[in-house]
């Protein structure tokens, strides 16, 4: 078990830069998830940590030791591949033992290690089968067994669940989490599935086009996305991003959103920590999570703001009902209680003011609001009528 440091790592193919200035630190026992859409460079980064992909510049340290010049086998890592990459002609036993066999570990010791891993993953009955005779979930276990048997410093997982069907994926996800809790190993896990990232990670790295967008705990990533990209990527459905303007009135900071009627809707927010960033009239993007918009009778929140909106679409999913609202021409999704009877038409909703984020229009970066750092409630507590 060890810590992993990635320092100003660059990788490019000719003029095409695929990883830019990556700085990541994973402490001992961290479950680090690299999250991003296809082609964001997350698998390439994992390959670089494994030593399968050469890097252009920068450094990778495992337990404080630079591994950039080491062969994969000398980096003290183990990897689980998306395709499992089990050796098709070998039995499960030989698959797990192959690394030890190559390294010249004695037969007795190999057998002991295999028995231990088989016990951990409950694959004892499969040891003499070939990968072709296994189900997807079983192959997945064997692939993990092959990594586990090495007891490496860092485990690398490359989208290990994406070839499984939905039900099995949820089961295996839970197993990976249990395994992690038992091993308390350092893990780097690549996925494009935000649910996997949220459920498994102690730290998430959100990537886009080879650039790290945000590094933080799942809570931070969800609650305080660094920019509109992260805000729009995390959450299902993602955060509503609505164009708005900053207004000031009677010493209070107001967020002006085009309303449903003639008059714009004003929402009092605590405002930026540094007021000079957003002078009067500055265009910003307001970010509101779907669960921060609800019907008046559903939740009791201290800081709410009434908004009138037109319900366009009601989508019950069983546990929640997603309601698509038209708020001054913006499509906004609210997460409502399934018991709330809703139909298309005009309806009054409440917005949780504490849940409103603001982002810079041009850079997309999140603007820190006053009082946020301390976790204090916003200064303005009075509810303002719209308009």
């Amino acid at each position, binding site marked *: 078990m060890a810590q992993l440091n990635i320092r100003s790592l660059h990788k490019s193919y000719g003029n095409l830069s695929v990883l830019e200035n990556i700085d990541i630190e994973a402490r001992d026992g961290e479950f680090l998830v690299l999250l991003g859409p296809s082609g964001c460079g997350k698998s390439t980064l994992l390959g670089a940590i*494994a*030593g*399968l992909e050469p890097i252009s510049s920068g450094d990778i340290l495992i337990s404080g030791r630079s591994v950039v010049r080491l*062969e*994969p*086998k000398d980096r003290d*890592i*183990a*990897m689980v*591949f*998306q*395709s499992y*990459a*089990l*050796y*098709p*002609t*070998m039995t499960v036993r030989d698959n797990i033992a*192959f*690394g030890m066999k*190559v*390294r010249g570990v004695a037969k007795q010791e190999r057998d002991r290690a295999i028995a231990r891993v088989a016990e951990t993953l409950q694959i004892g009955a499969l040891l003499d089968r070939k990968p*072709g005779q296994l189900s997807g979930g079983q192959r997945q276990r064997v692939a993990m067994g*092959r990594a586990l048997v090495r007891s490496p410093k860092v485990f690398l997982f490359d989208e290990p669940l994406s070839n499984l069907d939905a039900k099995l994926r949820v089961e295996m996800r839970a197993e990976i989490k249990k395994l992690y809790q038992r091993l308390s190993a350092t893990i780097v896990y690549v996925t494009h599935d935000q649910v996997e990232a949220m459920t498994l990670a102690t730290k998430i790295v959100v990537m886009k086009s080879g650039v790290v967008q945000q590094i933080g705990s799942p809570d931070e990533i969800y609650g305080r996305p660094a920019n509109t990209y992260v805000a729009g990527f995390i959450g299902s459905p993602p955060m509503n991003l609505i164009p708005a303007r900053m207004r000031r009135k009677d010493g209070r900071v107001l967020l002006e959103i085009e309303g449903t009627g003639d008059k714009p809707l004003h929402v009092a927010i605590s405002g930026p920590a540094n007021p000079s960033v957003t002078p009067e009239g500055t265009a910003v993007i307001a970010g509101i999570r779907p669960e921060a918009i609800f019907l008046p009778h559903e939740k009791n929140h201290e800081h709410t703001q009434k908004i009138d909106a037109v319900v366009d679409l009601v989508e019950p999913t069983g546990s929640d009902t997603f309601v698509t609202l038209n708020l001054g021409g913006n499509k906004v999704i609210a997460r409502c209680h399934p018991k709330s009877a809703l139909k298309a038409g005009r309806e009054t909703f409440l917005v949780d003011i504490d849940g409103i984020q603001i982002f810079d229009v041009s850079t997309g970066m999140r603007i820190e609001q006053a009082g946020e750092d301390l976790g204090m409630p916003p200064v303005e507590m009075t509810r303002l009528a719209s308009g």
Partner: protein
Amino acid sequence: MNAATLASPMPRSAVRTDFGRLLGWAAVYFTLFVFVLFFLGPLFVMITTSLKSIEEIRLGTLIGIPRHPTIQPWIDAWSNACVGVDCTGLSPFFLNTIYLVVPATLIPTAIGALNGYALTQVNFRGQNIVYAIILFGCFTPYQAILIPLAQTLGKLGLAGTINGLILAHVVYGLPFTTMFFRNFFISVPSDLAKAARIDGAGFFQTFRYVMLPMSLPIMVVVIIWQFTSIWNDFLFGVAFTSGRNVPIMVALNNIVSSSTGERPYNIDMASAMLAALPTLLVYVFAGKYFVRGLMAGSVKG
């Protein structure tokens, strides 16, 4: 409109399509049957003729079941028939060809497997050009290299020997075997090699323990390919060997052409059957691997 009027035309048209389908199948089977006759006819004639005595052939027609079946022509073809001046039958030449075909099949297969794997794993400048040249080697006609190859074998002191012929077939077989293996290994997911690399296996260990066992289907194809093309080869055999060193196809030719006077059709036919038998058996026993191997790569395994 009610349900009855809608339903009534249905059965009649169903009958019509059933009949049409039947007719279609009949046409297909008839065509196939004609082709079967066409292909099996010569074989039938060969077998029946080889079981007749020369008197029976002289009296009767070529086509017809032997009235007094005898295996004497087969015995003669194997051990008594005159090949050129020696009346040894095909047996020594059969052994010649075994001695030729085993190394000339195994050596290019082994080297081709390694070559093909290397071409998919090792990245180097001009990789595609190398592969293009190898492909070109596959399509170079025998005739074009006959004289330079003869000169080379002469300089090596291998002219007229079976070892020289082995070398010729090894060299000529390499582009084919390399191409077959390369096309197989290109379809193997790259994750496998990566996994082996992380497991600590080097190039040769990965090849030996992971890749080579996987390539069994294509290896069977390559072996069958090499075996049949060498076994059936006439041109290299006649050009690079002579006398007692010739392979079976050349010997067969000599048997047929060295008979004087009355043609012993029965012995000729038996000789041809004996010469063709090994390749036939290879297809019978390994044919399913052959088809499977040709399909390998098209289906993810």
